């Protein structure tokens, strides 16, 4: 139904417009030569001016702009390349410096350690020597003390024994004989003590 109405409308409108158009003066205005000369004149004038202004003033500027941009871009790329190379060089140098310092630090550390170890060794050696000397000295002293103490013990023993004898008997006895007895006894005792 709706389709039919639309179709009728279309058909009617076509008839109406056709009538309206045919009622007016037909033909193409393009083929009316009344304004041909005027159109040619204005076309030549406007297009000529457009061509002259574009070719003399505007297009050279645009092409110039494009050229400068091109060259600028090339230049920038060149400088960027150069800078990149420089950076690479710098990075290499930096790496080299770091490596060198590392090696140096290692060497330094090693040598210092060696030094310290040597020092410690030396000190230990000298200390050991000193200790040995001290020990020897002490041994000697001990020996001497042993000897002197024996004599002193003997002397004391003689004196105490003479005193004892004096108090027991009430008279002095020959010291030399006493000492001989004491010495003999002490020797025996010493031998027994020393395990000889």
């Amino acid at each position: 139904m709706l389709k039919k109405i639309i179709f009728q409308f279309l058909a009617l409108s076509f008839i109406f417009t056709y009538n309206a158009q045919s009622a007016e003066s037909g033909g193409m205005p393009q083929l009316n030569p009344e304004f041909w000369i005027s159109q040619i004149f204005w076309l030549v004038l406007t297009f000529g001016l457009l061509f002259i202004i574009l070719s003399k003033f505007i297009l050279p500027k645009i092409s110039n702009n494009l050229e400068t941009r091109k060259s600028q871009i090339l230049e920038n790329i060149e400088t960027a390349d150069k800078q990149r190379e420089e950076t690479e060089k710098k990075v290499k140098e930096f790496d080299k410096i770091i490596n060198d310092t590392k090696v140096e630090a290692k060497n330094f550390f090693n040598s210092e350690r060696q030094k310290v170890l040597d020092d410690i060794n030396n000190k230990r050696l000298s200390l050991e020597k000193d200790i040995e000397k001290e020990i020897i000295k002490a041994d000697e002293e001990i020996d001497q003390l042993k000897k002197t103490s024996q004599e002193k013990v003997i002397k004391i023993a003689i004196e105490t024994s003479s005193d004892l004898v004096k108090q027991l008997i009430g008279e002095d006895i020959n010291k030399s004989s006493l000492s001989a007895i004491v010495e003999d006894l002490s020797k025996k005792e010493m031998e027994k003590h020393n395990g000889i």
Partner: protein
Amino acid sequence: MAANPMYQFNVYRIGPEIKISNIDISFTNASLFMVISSLAILIIFNLGTKRSIIPNKIQLLAELSYSFISKMISDTAGSKARPYFSFIFSLFMFVLFCNMFGMIPYSFTVTSHIIVTFVLAAFIFIGVTIIGFIKHGLGYLKLFVPSGVPMVLLPLIVVIEIISYLSRPISLSVRLFANMMAGHTMMKVFGGFVVSLGIVGGWLPLGFSVALTGLEILVAFLQAYVFAILTCIYLNDALNLHH
């Protein structure tokens, strides 16, 4: 009156009648739109000449058009056509802007008049022929004698070649004129349907009208491109004689 689809192509006088020794060169609506198109081109491309390394939008437009036409010329006519760049650029832009301004409702399409397109085409034809004779002398006539054609057929071929060469300005001008006129007439007819069918039945032709507008904008660009590229091809024949 306004329902006549051909009415939009009427040329009428704007302002006083100007006559130089009995020749009428009055300023008409056609002249007005030629002036408007030229001014628009000049303004847009003049704004596009700012010297900045990073272009703004108008500069980008101008530079892209420049490279587009530059590429078109070097592709079709080679590097020898470089001196004619400005002319082809102006031609393309003029035709394009006239076509595009014609797409504005109630405006006038300069290129829908056979006399305008014919003058452009005739100028190109004459110019290309002169360039051909300057570059190759009488050797340019070899254009009409294709190589590798049997002697028997040669008279016929030469006649055909000459006719095809002479018909170049006509085909070039009629192509542009007919396209513009047909498109605008069709749009006008559908617009008339919209009015006469009113609110009930007018939607269908309105849709057609909208679709046609898009198509016509495409045609407006395409015809300007075709006009320019055919000029390049004719120029190529004149500059690099292949036959």
